[in-house]
């Protein structure tokens, strides 16, 4: 892997649960993120998938410093940004920007598009001289595929996909090196989603961006990511390249997740093997001992309740190598093929 631009180690975020208003006392904690390690190379896309409540959005917020971690470090080019404040933090923020999920609430309805995209320059005036900002905003609109003449319009005059482009333009304004995108296309219609995914792909190569792409849609994540991390209940359970994760998953949760994705191919429905998990995700206030997936896992044995499985290459695969030899936090990791081979000849052209 290339030299990491962002390196996260043992990141933890616990939200204390308190009782009482004036005299507060702690009555437990929501363990939203519970020890996450990530590495992001320059110009690379790291996909993070997981179901709601797995902590992926909290990770995103900590990466852009919207939440302070309870413990752990986030190193940007070797410097731990979780301890920064004031001027130094502001300088780092320029380089790590965020694109939000909901195109309807992420743009201030009282501001024009020009003001929204130009705001980064108001906050970081050193980036662009005042007289130059309008021109830059027009260029950004053009770059994300919107007509620069719309600079004086308000967000409600645009469709969801167009608003997401505006959000992306705002994220690009300071020329960041890292963009953290939290479910950037999940609120969009299928046909518009493809436009925005393509746009993000193109911007990545044009501006040499590194993406942390967070989503629950496994197909979109595979499409855009170089490497993928699968999160469950606050931890990464399996991580590897897209081929390693999708074609050679070894963690039972990843396998269940992949097997549950509906595939747009009616021919696949008869011979398709589905792993239907029982029950619901446990509450993050009350995480099971040992392996946190064991309460829903069909392979769980006594060892799983006692020992926390480490995120490492399982011993069974380490010697043999090959695509199954990637980090997987399971005591009983085994390879299983769950994604049906598509017959549908989609794709461009």
């Amino acid at each position, binding site marked *: 892997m290339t030299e990491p631009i962002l390196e996260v180690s043992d990141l933890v975020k616990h939200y204390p649960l308190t009782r009482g*208003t*004036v005299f507060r006392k702690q009555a437990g904690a929501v363990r939203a993120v519970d020890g996450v390690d990530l590495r992001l190379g320059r110009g690379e896309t790291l996909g993070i998938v997981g179901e709601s409540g797995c902590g992926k959005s909290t990770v995103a*917020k900590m990466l*852009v*410093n*919207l939440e302070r971690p309870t413990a752990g470090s986030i190193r940007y080019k070797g410097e731990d940004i979780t301890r920064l404040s004031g001027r130094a*933090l*502001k300088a780092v*923020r*320029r380089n790590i*920007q*965020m694109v*939000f*999920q*909901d195109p309807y*609430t*992420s*743009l*201030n*309805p*009282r*501001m*024009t598009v020009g003001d*929204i995209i130009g*705001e*980064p320059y*108001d*906050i*970081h005036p050193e*980036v662009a001289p005042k007289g130059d900002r309008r021109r*830059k905003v027009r*260029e*950004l609109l*053009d*770059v*994300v*595929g*919107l*007509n620069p003449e*719309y600079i*004086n*319009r*308000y967000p*409600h*005059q*645009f*469709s969801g996909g*167009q608003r997401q482009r505006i*959000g992306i333009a*705002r994220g690009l304004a*300071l*020329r960041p*090196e890292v963009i953290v995108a939290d479910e950037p296309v999940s609120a969009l219609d299928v046909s518009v989603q493809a*436009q925005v995914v*393509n*746009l993000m792909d*193109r911007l990545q190569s*044009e*501006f*040499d961006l590194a993406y942390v792409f967070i989503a629950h849609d496994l197909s979109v994540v595979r499409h855009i990511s170089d490497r993928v991390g699968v999160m469950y209940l606050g931890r990464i359970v399996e991580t590897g390249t897209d081929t390693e994760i999708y074609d050679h998953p070894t963690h039972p949760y990843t396998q269940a997740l992949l097997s549950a994705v509906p595939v747009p191919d009616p021919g696949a429905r008869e011979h398709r093997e589905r792993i239907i998990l029982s029950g619901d995700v446990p509450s993050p206030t009350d995480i099971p001992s040992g392996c946190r997936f064991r309460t829903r896992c069909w392979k769980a044995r006594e060892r799983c309740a006692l020992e926390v499985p480490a995120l490492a290459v399982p011993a069974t695969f380490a010697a043999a190598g090959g695509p199954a030899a990637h980090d997987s936090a399971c005591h009983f990791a085994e390879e299983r093929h769950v994604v049906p081979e598509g017959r549908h000849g989609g794709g461009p052209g």
Partner: protein
Amino acid sequence: MPNQYHEAERAIAGTGMGGTMDLGVDEAETLGKRPGPDGGGPQEPPRSLWSDAWRDLRRNPVFIVSALVICFLVLISLWPSAIASGSPLTCDLSKAQQGSQSGHPFGFDGQGCDVYTRTVYGARTSVAVGVLATLGVTVLGSVLGALAGFFGGVWDSVLSRITDVFFAIPVVLGGLVLLSVITSNTIWPVIGFIVLLGWPQISRIARGAVITAKQNDYVQAARALGASHSRLVLRHIAPNAVAPVIVVATIALGTYIALEATLSYLGVGLKPPSVSWGIDISAASPYIRNAPHALLWPSGALAITVLAFIMLGDAVRDALDPKLR
């Protein structure tokens, strides 16, 4: 770092970028044909919550009537002599309790003062108290409420308890106790009292509105850019939180006018020789059998004024409420 930045700079300004992306051009073309991407017909001007609300209000008869009444009130409180030639303090005991007569359409009160002139001049007190008290309440209440909503935590807990305490004070009783020790016969003690008891109402509204606005992603987006607290509040939160405050303040203005009259009626607000509808109502009530007109006109003026502000607030609320759209 500066190097990378300039590289990216050149990339974006470079020629390969401009209009050559398929996607960009396609969409721009589609948009070009349909100037209102979401909204409808061509040449649709940019619209905001406020211009939408204004469009609604202009068609609402309740708004038009109450706004006209309020305009009239403001005008006569600024220039009462324009429609009432005499002085409200010139009284002639010999005409006491007399009815309507030429030049004195509303008749005379128990002291022989012209009811018409006094009613016109009374508007000045009411409007002044209402407007100034509302200004004070709104400024104090929204600043404290916004701070509590924005910073939360201890600030919020403390402020919430304080507002609870103030809510527990009965207004009239509080007025009787606090104002009876004050001797100054100006409108300021009354305004001060209203501000003191009125701000918690606004601060609650402001706090709620700020908390709602704060949760929007665009506030998070601005924070992620490194925006300062003042920028977040002034540019992103306040403009999206003022609507409910304005509505409540408008309605409250009407009730403050009524409160001033009540306090003056009870003898702790303004006292003669000040001119106020409350004083006149108080003075006229013993003679209600002999001279009902002396009570009728100031009370009627008071009722219409209070009603006008409350209806205006209602109309504004309806126009600003996105759920009704």
